[in-house]
């Protein structure tokens, strides 16, 4: 779905405010990157340079093609410094020759300045760090713009026996080196059931997975988005952003399920000494706050809907 130009600004402001309201923790993709990315798409920063504004009709999130344009522009922006930017006099002169061209050049300068200063969400990113050298505990983090438009982060803490274990290698200086095969593996399996992913990760890393989390931002429902059949249509009558997470770890004291929409798999295999925590929270506006609360409470879940806060903008 392509948003008409006059709806782009309101859509992005609503998404940003919803993200701020949910204030996702480190199990989610970084909020600062998400907000910087959303702002980069907005007409206030780069005009219509990154148009068309494409969104996923099923999830209401910005489409990969739209988000990716900002990333591509960032590659160009970071090849230069502010010294290479067009001066005000040059922009004035260009505007005198062709107002539309002058505006585009000014928008490009503003967008490049924003993109030089702020990191954006990656399409794919895998990072890792050594948490402890003895035993060898490593932390892995995989971020992705999922094909359906949602943003997902997988975090894993893995204990390995050898310094070189599958795609993981702790070098002489105690730094973790990741083989590219790990990212390819996660890219192929990131949507698997959490217990299956837990097992697969333990196998390819030849170690023990102490903690595994997967957290999603999105979908973002609003009028025009196709809602799934198993939710009331009224949930799409305003703005509603989902933030969902699932954690399988030893530090989860007891199994807990706080997701009013998705049930836990009935035959889930949880390793001994670990438990699973699942949660889904919503940021909603107006009438949808009450509708969503009613819907969640009917399923036995309270305090999962947060009204979207006023438009105080985050300082990036």
């Amino acid at each position, binding site marked *: 779905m392509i948003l008409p130009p006059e709806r782009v600004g309101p859509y992005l402001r609503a998404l940003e405010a919803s993200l701020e309201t949910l204030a996702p923790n480190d199990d989610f993709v970084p909020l600062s990157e998400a907000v910087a990315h959303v702002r980069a798409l907005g007409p206030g920063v780069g005009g219509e340079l990154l148009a068309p504004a494409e969104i996923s009709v099923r999830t209401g999130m910005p489409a*990969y093609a739209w988000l990716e344009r900002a*990333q*591509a522009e960032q590659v*160009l922006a970071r090849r230069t410094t502010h010294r290479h930017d067009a001066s005000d006099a040059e922009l004035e002169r260009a505007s005198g020759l062709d107002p539309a*061209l002058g505006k585009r050049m000014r928008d490009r300068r503003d967008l490049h300045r924003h993109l030089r200063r702020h990191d954006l969400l990656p399409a794919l990113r895998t990072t890792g760090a050594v948490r402890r050298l003895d035993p060898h505990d490593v932390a892995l983090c995989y971020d992705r713009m999922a094909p359906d438009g949602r943003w997902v982060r997988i975090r894993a803490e893995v204990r390995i026996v050898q310094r070189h274990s599958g795609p993981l290698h702790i070098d002489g200086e105690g730094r973790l080196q990741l083989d590219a095969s790990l990212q390819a593996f996660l*890219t192929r399996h990131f949507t698997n059931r959490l217990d299956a992913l837990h097992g697969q990760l333990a196998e390819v890393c030849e170690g023990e997975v102490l903690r595994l989390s997967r957290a999603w931002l999105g979908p973002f429902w609003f009028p025009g988005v196709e809602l799934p059949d198993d939710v009331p249509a009224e949930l799409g009558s305003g703005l509603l952003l989902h933030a969902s997470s699932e954690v399988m770890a030893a530090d989860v004291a007891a199994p807990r399920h706080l997701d009013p929409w998705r049930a836990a798999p009935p035959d889930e295999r949880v390793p001994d000494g670990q438990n699973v925590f699942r949660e889904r929270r919503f940021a909603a506006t107006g009438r949808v706050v009450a509708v969503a609360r009613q819907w969640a409470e009917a399923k036995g879940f309270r305090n999962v809907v947060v009204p979207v806060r006023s438009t105080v903008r985050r300082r990036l």
Partner: protein
Amino acid sequence: MSDRQRRNYLGEQLTYAMLQRRREEVSTRHQRAVGRVDRLLVTQETLGRELGDGLDTLSQTRGELQELEAAANDTSLLATLTRPFTARRTALQRRSVAEGLIQQYEKVSVRLREATAFSDELKLTALELQQEVDRLHRELGEALHNQRVAATRVLELEDVLAELERDPELSAEVKDRRRDRYTFDLRTEAVALDLYKAAAEHCRTHLPAARSLRDTVLRLHEDMAEYVLSATHTVNAAGRRIQGLGMLADAPVVVAELQASLDELNQAMQATADYVESSQSLIAEVLPQLSAKVAAQAEASAAVLHSELEHIDREKSRALAERALRDAAEDEIRDLLGDDP
């Protein structure tokens, strides 16, 4: 010379220094424009090289897809027997098709953004060169107008001087005083006539080079804008398809569909490569010719001015050349009346 007549000149009163400065400015602007066109073409060449690399990578991805499909469909006894023992190694060795597609798409997308920005740069350069052409036309029109004014005044002063000699009523002192005044005005107008003539010649000399530069950049811009438009459409379509298929990208069943997506990307890349290749002729042929033309015309213009300078100096040293000047001015007027742009 009355004030009313003086007001008939357009623009600033031209001096040799001013003319010399204009010549240098035009020459500098043209040299800078040639340099800029050169840089634009080099950028285009770089873009072409990067696109070539992109095409290579795309071919590799295609090869890997085919291997993936072949491996998934391998039902030989050996493959069946060894699969359980190689599962973990295979899980790590197998590249993600979705990852490959995303990386490739990102490369194409960066080049497209680059081409879009480059297209704007070309447009700005074309507009600036058109502005230069407009400026030369305006200066030419002004110079021709002023040349006509100066020539008319030379003729008028010639007549006034002739009448003065014939006037029996004026005393010798008054005649002397007026003769000095008119002679001074006549020399001043003669110098102005030469200067405006040189200014017009200077504009005529530089106009073809400015036009050639403008046309070259316009051609570059038109080609680039057309390419960007079609490539953006194709790449966006491929991007949407890649996103849609991404979730299933690693299942062999969709390999055929992914191949189709790659075909779309390939088409966009090929269109770019074709475009860049066609523009290579600009680098190989047009630019050297253009540089030579601009250099030759700058030289010719300098020679004209130098000759005018000598001419003006001789004028100053000569006592009077009223008769010859009047003939020249009359010719000039006849020419001008029939050849005013």
